[in-house]
């Protein structure tokens, strides 16, 4: 591996307080080093360009059973967006649900180097990792869906937090997962019989537990296990007018579990949970209320889930919500429930500028990003592909950085929605530093990935260089240049190697799969024979077949944490 020196770029490293200074970055053996005392090094001239840590995406549906079912049932999504095979890259198809190789290449072209899949049914973990293995260029991980697992609901219902923690620890290792994911907690179990839960204090049928108890319970478990990330929550009532209340309740219910200024909950794709109004006619944005709350608290982080108008595919573990989407849109619909654990639903969807509801949704995501003052609390995502395919990130970046860019689109959206939107009153424009937080530093910090999202000595040498000269370009006015620059990175460096140059893949690499291994301090808490017995009762697979062997991951990168249990 060559030593590398990136010279003269405008460096943005918010985690280390570097804000656009002209600096050199030195790389040796895949890590960032102080300086290179060696003669043999390759130099990249980054003069007139911006240097940032490689992009980090903490919530993007890129792999696994439901993503693949989506791919399978939408050949019409693929056939006009193809990637021919080249000497260095495998062929594939794209648009809203790209094939795995194409997913990796397209992220890398935009300067992204770490992407997390946020929804892995534990029973299908093997499938998830096989797809991640075939997703090149990026480091990755997956979050097991735990909020409706019987082995979680049962101990939590009895108040046995430590027992639940032991099970979660075992599952995290068995599925090679990274974080505890909650989706419509309790609602998915109810969906097993076609039902749902109405709010966080509704009782889950047959289990005598409320979503509030599940959220609080798993939050405590997360703390006991010292997980690097917080609990990652897709709230109840997602997509329902008036659900901003549920979102606030969800954030409030773990307020007193925070013992210092560090976050204890991450509310994901917050746009879908910030709906005000009582029905689709009176529908409006609840972003202001959410922002007000988040601005005065330090225990919550969120990500946008920003809508981009056009054709995409919605896919989440929220079975009941996806069924509602089917009823609204009359598009084809896949539903796939997973025994003992969770569910999934997929519906193609088109966001139209002329639609009142969609235009309000578009506004909500941006309002959240612009009204929440601290960029460490709100990250840029589209919940790919739910609100938009990830290839539209550069467009969203231009909206964040340029009021003019927002206004241009505002002129074309539904008039009634525009009338109700707060956007016309918002002047704020993201700086490059804030952008670096929203798309890399903040996400990496939230994930607890210590070697990502920054450029300090010891960090993984995952770096993106964008061809934007901050001294000559005004992002507010020249947002088209911003879009172009972030669409095709001048350079993407992964583990110290140049893998993308001018938006083209020059070297294909495999990334690592991150997963968390909680080490229990009390060996008696190890998975008990009773659990094994219950296992055979609950599942239709054998206990030994459930565990994903570590060697099944192409490049396994465990992160060990010491649990308090």
């Amino acid at each position, binding site marked *: 591996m060559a030593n590398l020196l990136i010279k003269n770029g405008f460096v943005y490293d918010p985690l280390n307080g570097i804000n656009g200074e002209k600096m050199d970055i030195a790389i040796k053996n895949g890590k960032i080093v102080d300086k290179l005392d060696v003669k043999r090094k390759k130099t990249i001239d980054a003069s007139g360009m911006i240097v940032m840590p490689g992009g980090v995406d903490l919530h993007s549906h890129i792999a696994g059973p439901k993503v693949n079912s989506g791919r399978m049932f939408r050949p019409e999504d693929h056939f006009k967006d193809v990637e021919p*095979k080249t000497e260095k890259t495998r062929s594939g198809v794209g648009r809203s649900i790209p094939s795995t190789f194409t997913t990796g290449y397209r992220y890398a072209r935009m300067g992204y180097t770490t992407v997390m899949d946020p929804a892995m049914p534990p029973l299908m973990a093997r499938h998830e990792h096989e797809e991640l293995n075939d997703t090149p260029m990026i480091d990755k991980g997956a979050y097991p869906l735990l909020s409706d697992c019987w082995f979680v609901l049962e101990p939590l219902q009895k108040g046995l937090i430590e027992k639940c923690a032991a099970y979660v620890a075992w599952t995290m290792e068995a599925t090679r997962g990274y974080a505890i994911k909650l989706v419509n907690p309790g609602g998915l179990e109810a969906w097993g019989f076609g039902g749902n839960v109405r709010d966080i204090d509704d009782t889950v049928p047959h289990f005598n537990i409320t979503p509030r108890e599940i959220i609080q319970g798993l939050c405590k478990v997360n703390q006991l296990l010292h997980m690097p990330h917080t609990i990652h929550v897709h709230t109840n009532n997602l997509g329902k007018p008036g659900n901003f209340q549920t979102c606030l309740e969800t954030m409030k219910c773990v307020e007193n579990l925070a013992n210092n200024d560090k976050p204890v909950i991450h509310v994901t794709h917050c746009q879908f949970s910030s709906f005000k109004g009582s029905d689709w006619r009176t529908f409006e944005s609840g972003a202001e209320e959410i922002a007000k709350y988040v601005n005065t608290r330090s225990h919550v982080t969120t990500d946008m889930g920003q809508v981009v108008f056009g054709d995409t595919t919605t896919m989440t573990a929220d079975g009941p919500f996806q069924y509602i989407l089917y009823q609204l849109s009359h598009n084809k619909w896949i539903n796939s429930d*997973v025994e003992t654990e969770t569910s999934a639903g997929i*519906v193609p969807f088109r966001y139209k500028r002329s639609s009142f509801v969609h235009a309000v949704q578009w506004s909500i995501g941006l309002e959240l990003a612009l009204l929440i003052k601290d960029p460490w609390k709100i990250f840029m995502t589209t919940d790919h592909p739910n609100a938009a395919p990830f290839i539209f990130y550069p467009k969203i970046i231009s909206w964040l950085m340029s009021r003019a860019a927002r206004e241009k689109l505002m002129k074309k959206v539904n008039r009634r929605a525009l009338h109700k939107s707060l956007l016309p009153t918002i002047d704020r424009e993201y700086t490059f530093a804030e952008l670096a937080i929203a798309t890399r530093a903040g996400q990496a910090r939230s994930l607890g990935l210590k070697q990502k999202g920054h450029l300090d000595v010891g960090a993984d040498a995952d770096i993106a260089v964008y061809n934007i000269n901050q001294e000559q370009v005004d992002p507010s006015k020249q947002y088209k240049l911003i879009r172009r620059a972030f669409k095709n990175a001048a350079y993407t460096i992964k583990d110290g190697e140049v893998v993308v140059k001018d938006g083209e893949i020059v070297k294909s690499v495999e990334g690592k799969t991150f997963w968390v291994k909680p080490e229990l301090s009390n060996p008696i808490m190890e998975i008990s024979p009773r659990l094994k017995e219950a296992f055979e009762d609950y599942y239709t697979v054998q206990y030994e077949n459930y565990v994903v062997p570590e060697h099944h991951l192409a490049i396994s990168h465990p992160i060990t944490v010491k649990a308090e249990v």
Partner: protein
Amino acid sequence: MGESKFLGYSLHRPQKPLIRKNGELVEASLNEAVKKSAEILAEASYPILYGWSNTSCEAIRVGVELAEEVGGVIDNTSTVCHGPSVLSIQDVGFSTCTLGQIRHRADLVLYWASNPWSAHPRHLERYTNFTEGRFRSSAWNKYLDSLGAYRSERRMQRAAKLAGEIHGLPVAAPSVEEPVQRLPHALFEKERKMIVVDVRRTRTADIADYFLEVEPNKDYEIFQALRTLIRDEELEVDSVGGVPVEILEDLTDVLVGCEFGVLFFGVGLTMSEGKLRNIEAGISLVRDLNQFTKFIIMPMRGHYNVTGANIVSTWQTGYPYAVDFSHGYPRYNPGETSVVDLLSRDESDAALIVASDPVAHFPKEAAKNLIKHPLIVIDTGTSATTVFADVVLPTAVSGIEVEGTAYRMDRVPLPLKKVVRQPKACPSDEQILRRIIREVRRLKKKGGRSNG
């Protein structure tokens, strides 16, 4: 059935690779056979790579890579079997779940054009009516009871007849049984119940709570009729598919009134007239039923890893089968890029068959055109296809001698375990395919050839 596969596997296996020389298949070294295979594939203008359903996912991944490298068409047995299910899903989606959900929750099971008692013998025991679930108990006892009741009634009838003969009493005329006009009461109870719908009475039908006999090739009409009836709308015909509308109306009540229903459908539905549209109608019915209750649909799949073949193909190429790489990127158009169709039109000029026997199973015209051209077979035993091959590469048996992953019919991934040590001379499918790719790349570099 599974046992015989396990225990019989080592009979009838070619031990060494074979190459056809002067019209005869003779033994050759692995190197030679790999080289010849690579030559055939690299030169071909439209090679097909077919089979894949009886091998592990690891091998299938390499297969896709090879198809891409040689600019060919990769297709799996979906094309002759459950392909129509895939096509329907692409048009309307589907509502499904993993088998455990059925075990725990289903109170109504419909087997439509499917006979699990013969084809998937463990199905009832493990997943449906005869198993215990968290929210449902097994219907086995109920079945035994009803079987017992049926048998005792028969015994009593025989006894009565015998008594009449011994004592010279006039034998009571057997009561004329009224034709069953409506559905049995059992179908409206809370416990597990099973309905079988088929064109003739099968072994599964014998143990069902209700058997609905339908005319062949009328499934489409029956599904569509049910879709309309569940919305309380009326039909203008007296019967559909040989079934009186009153019975369909009763059936509608059962469907809507259950707590969790599941419709399993067999290959019969994909084969009968209407093909993919039959499945589509079934999926649409199940989808519409979700307005009233929880209902799911699932295919009863045959070849053991055909689901895996679809899944791997989809994540790597975007498409589940019939993937054409001839232009350098994946293209998909069943009917055009599916192997049976393109063989029938005699469009390909070379073939690699992996773990499959198309000569025995394909339509005559397609099989004829298959053997006309250079044919490479990678398999664990002899078959009708190996007889006509130009190169035969024997491999180890996945799931017995080689580890890997396979996908169950409900898409749950399972590890294939090694039970016996791999014979030295027999590499795995994955290993052989990797060697062939390496050799193809070497040849292409040498020849400065590009496949687009």
